[in-house]
């Protein structure tokens, strides 16, 4: 190894000599130009850090503009150093869905009945006592998942309440130690190739997935894309703090942006943190192929920095990125689960579980602003998949996958996701 190492250094030593020659040319050029310009007064931006720096200018005319710098973390302060970021309400709702999901999953053990009224109380945060590990004051708080599900739309909230009643009813009929879920029989289905077991409907649909991932779409995705980053919440004041006497040092626009971010992740240093649940988790899982986690989080940070500099065109460019990348993430995750279902096609428990997840991520796509997969397209894809996951064919699964990939521009990843 010794000789080659020396060779490397010898090789690298050549570089500076080439540079020297170039520098000499540049220096001469600058000198020539410099002499030519000394006699006139050229106005322009004279700050070399600015994006429109004019090297010919010698008098600054105040026209300098600066690129929005993307901070490494989602940390923003006002001119006095006060923290301007707050998404406590989103943190509460994410924690509510975490607690609800934990409760739902207890029904995967046969003989564990879920109480429908408990689920409904959790959903509406109405008379339910939360564990509230982070002491956010969730119990009795005004925050709830239900009113934020597609803006409280009755068709949607009743759909989710239907899932909750469905799982409560099915769980109450399971018997300890008995995994009798099968085609035509709701119950706990046991995997033939792993230790996994899931409570599923007579058609193999898994309510827990439809509720958890379904609310990721109808509540979190909807609020990010179609509410907080949409014109209604973005065309607002960006000049003064909402209420600096109440520690609200943020502008209305900044706050709305933070609320969107809070529905995506609760970590200011995402994706270093918070990759275990909801969109933060699935974006991170799609990082390698789609760069979802890095692109979405960078766009959130850049857009927020742009708002703080009142650079709204820059903000809008980041909104477009977030909408596009969330769509790719959701569609890519659906495709990933459809492929998993093909791999586990013979395993009723896993196939049904993965198809239920895929269904929820397909459903989510209709909640994105400027979506490529609107409600009609979602419904046609789900019709194609069919309701009965025990009698779905591989041709149906691949057709749904390929059509979805075409709609969302993911064809090149259709078999590898």
């Amino acid at each position, binding site marked *: 190894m010794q000789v080659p190492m020396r060779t490397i250094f010898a090789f690298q030593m050549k570089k500076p000599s080439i540079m020297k020659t170039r520098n000499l040319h540049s220096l001469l050029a600058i000198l020539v130009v410099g002499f030519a310009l000394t006699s006139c007064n050229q106005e322009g931006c004279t700050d070399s850090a600015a994006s429109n720096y004019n090297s010919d200018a010698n008098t600054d005319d105040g026209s300098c503009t600066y690129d929005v710098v993307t901070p490494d973390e989602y940390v923003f302060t006002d001119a006095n150093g006060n923290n301007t970021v707050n998404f406590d309400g989103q943190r509460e709702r994410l924690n509510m869905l975490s607690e609800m999901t934990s409760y739902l999953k207890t029904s995967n053990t046969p003989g564990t009945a879920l109480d429908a009224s408990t689920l409904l109380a959790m959903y509406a945060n109405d008379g339910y006592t939360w564990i509230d590990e982070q002491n956010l004051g969730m119990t009795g708080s005004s925050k709830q998942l239900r009113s934020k599900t597609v803006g409280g739309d009755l068709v949607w909230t009743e759909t989710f309440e239907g899932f909750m009643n469905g799982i409560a009813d099915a769980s109450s009929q399971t018997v300890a130690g008995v995994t009798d879920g099968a085609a035509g029989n709701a119950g706990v289905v046991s995997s033939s190739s792993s230790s996994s077991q899931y409570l599923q409907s007579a058609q193999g649909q898994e309510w827990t997935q439809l509720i958890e991932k379904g609310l990721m779409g109808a509540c979190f995705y909807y609020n990010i894309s179609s509410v907080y980053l949409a014109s209604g919440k973005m065309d607002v004041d960006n000049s003064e703090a909402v209420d600096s006497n109440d520690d609200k040092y943020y502008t209305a626009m900044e706050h709305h942006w933070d609320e969107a971010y809070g529905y995506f992740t609760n970590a200011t240093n995402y994706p270093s943190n918070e990759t275990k649940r909801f969109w933060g988790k699935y974006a991170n899982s799609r990082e390698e192929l789609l760069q979802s986690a890095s692109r979405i989080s960078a766009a959130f940070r850049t857009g927020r920095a742009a708002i703080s500099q009142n650079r709204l065109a820059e903000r809008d460019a980041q909104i477009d990125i977030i909408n596009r990348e969330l769509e790719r993430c959701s569609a890519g995750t659906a495709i990933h689960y459809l492929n998993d279902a093909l791999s586990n096609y*013979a395993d009723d428990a896993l196939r049904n579980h993965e198809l239920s997840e895929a269904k929820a991520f397909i459903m989510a796509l209709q909640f994105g602003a400027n979506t490529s997969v609107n409600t009609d397209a979602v419904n046609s894809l789900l019709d194609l998949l069919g309701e009965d996951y025990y009698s779905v064919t*591989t041709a149906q699964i691949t057709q749904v996958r390929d059509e979805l990939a075409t709609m969302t521009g993911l064809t090149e990843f259709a078999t590898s996701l």
Partner: protein
Amino acid sequence: MTISNPGKKPTGRSMRPVGLFISTLCLILFAFGCNPDSDDEQITFDRGPFLENTVQAVILPAYSNFAAQCEALHNATEECIAGEINDQDIASLREVLRLTYLSWQHAALFDFGPAADRALSLTTNTYPTDTAEVIDEISNASWTPGLPATLNSIGLPALDYLLNHAPAEEVADLMNSSPARFDHFKRLIVFLEEESNNVLSAWENGFSSNFISNTGTEEGSSIGMLLNSFNEAYEQGIRKQKLGLPNGIMTFSETPQPQLVEAPFAETWSIELMHEALIGCENFYFGDRVQGDSQQIGLDDYLKSLGNFEYGLGLHNEITGQLSTAKAAVLTMHDPLGQYVVENQEATYEVFAELQALVVLWKVDMMSSLGVLITYQDNDND
């Protein structure tokens, strides 16, 4: 496992020094004015031609042979006259089924892309077959082959049962006395043929060219899918299913399970199928169906291009030797394999050990060595 992150994969063999060495070698060549891309095949391995050859010389022939055999099987049933089937017809059908089974061993190694889309391995060769269910489905007019609930009673194992469970005369008599039984036998074959054609045409119409052009090494790249599929097919489909489960070594109780052998009803096919599967692996490894043809770029060239090192030529020689040893070991067993694993369990453990040795060489050592190459390729752009 994937080879997507070679930097984290120095399993068993040290990778960094090697990568450094190759990079250094490259720099020396460059510093001295040589073009490393010119004719020095010792350190460059172009994935494009490798993928192209694997598709043209290994994968497409495997699927087209299998599809042709399925078609031949279908044709053979058409030559039988319903109600007048004799033991000669059954003997002919059996021979075509045996050839179909053999051709499947080659296609079974590539369970990704079009095959994964159709769950081809599951529809073709889920065994042991549920014989009671096979019989039940004979009278099922709305039978839809390929649905999850039918996987235990379709494909080659169901055909093995219907054709081989009794002497030829008896099988012929049953088919003659029950037209539905013969019809169901044909339905099974038609489905097998359809699925084999579906996968073949998907490979021929578009998938091949995309596969060959996807020369990256990241998750989901062609190399990644190909090598992962091959390793899984060998480890699970061959080593475990064909021997490790039937002889009990991979079960908790270590009790032989004679009913778990491949094609148990034929009684004389199991070992030949296992041997053929190893030939399939060999073809893939060497990149051709004529072993040792140096014109065909295979994994052997990948390893040999690394040079005269333990992880290069040395590993290639080890794999070549172990393949011969494993094939010979398989042939020391006698059919019916189901009976053999019960009566000679200990001897089958030794055969299993030879199969297991290939897992280590292919899955651990070879993947690690390929990681070296892939690291080198990535560093190219640094």
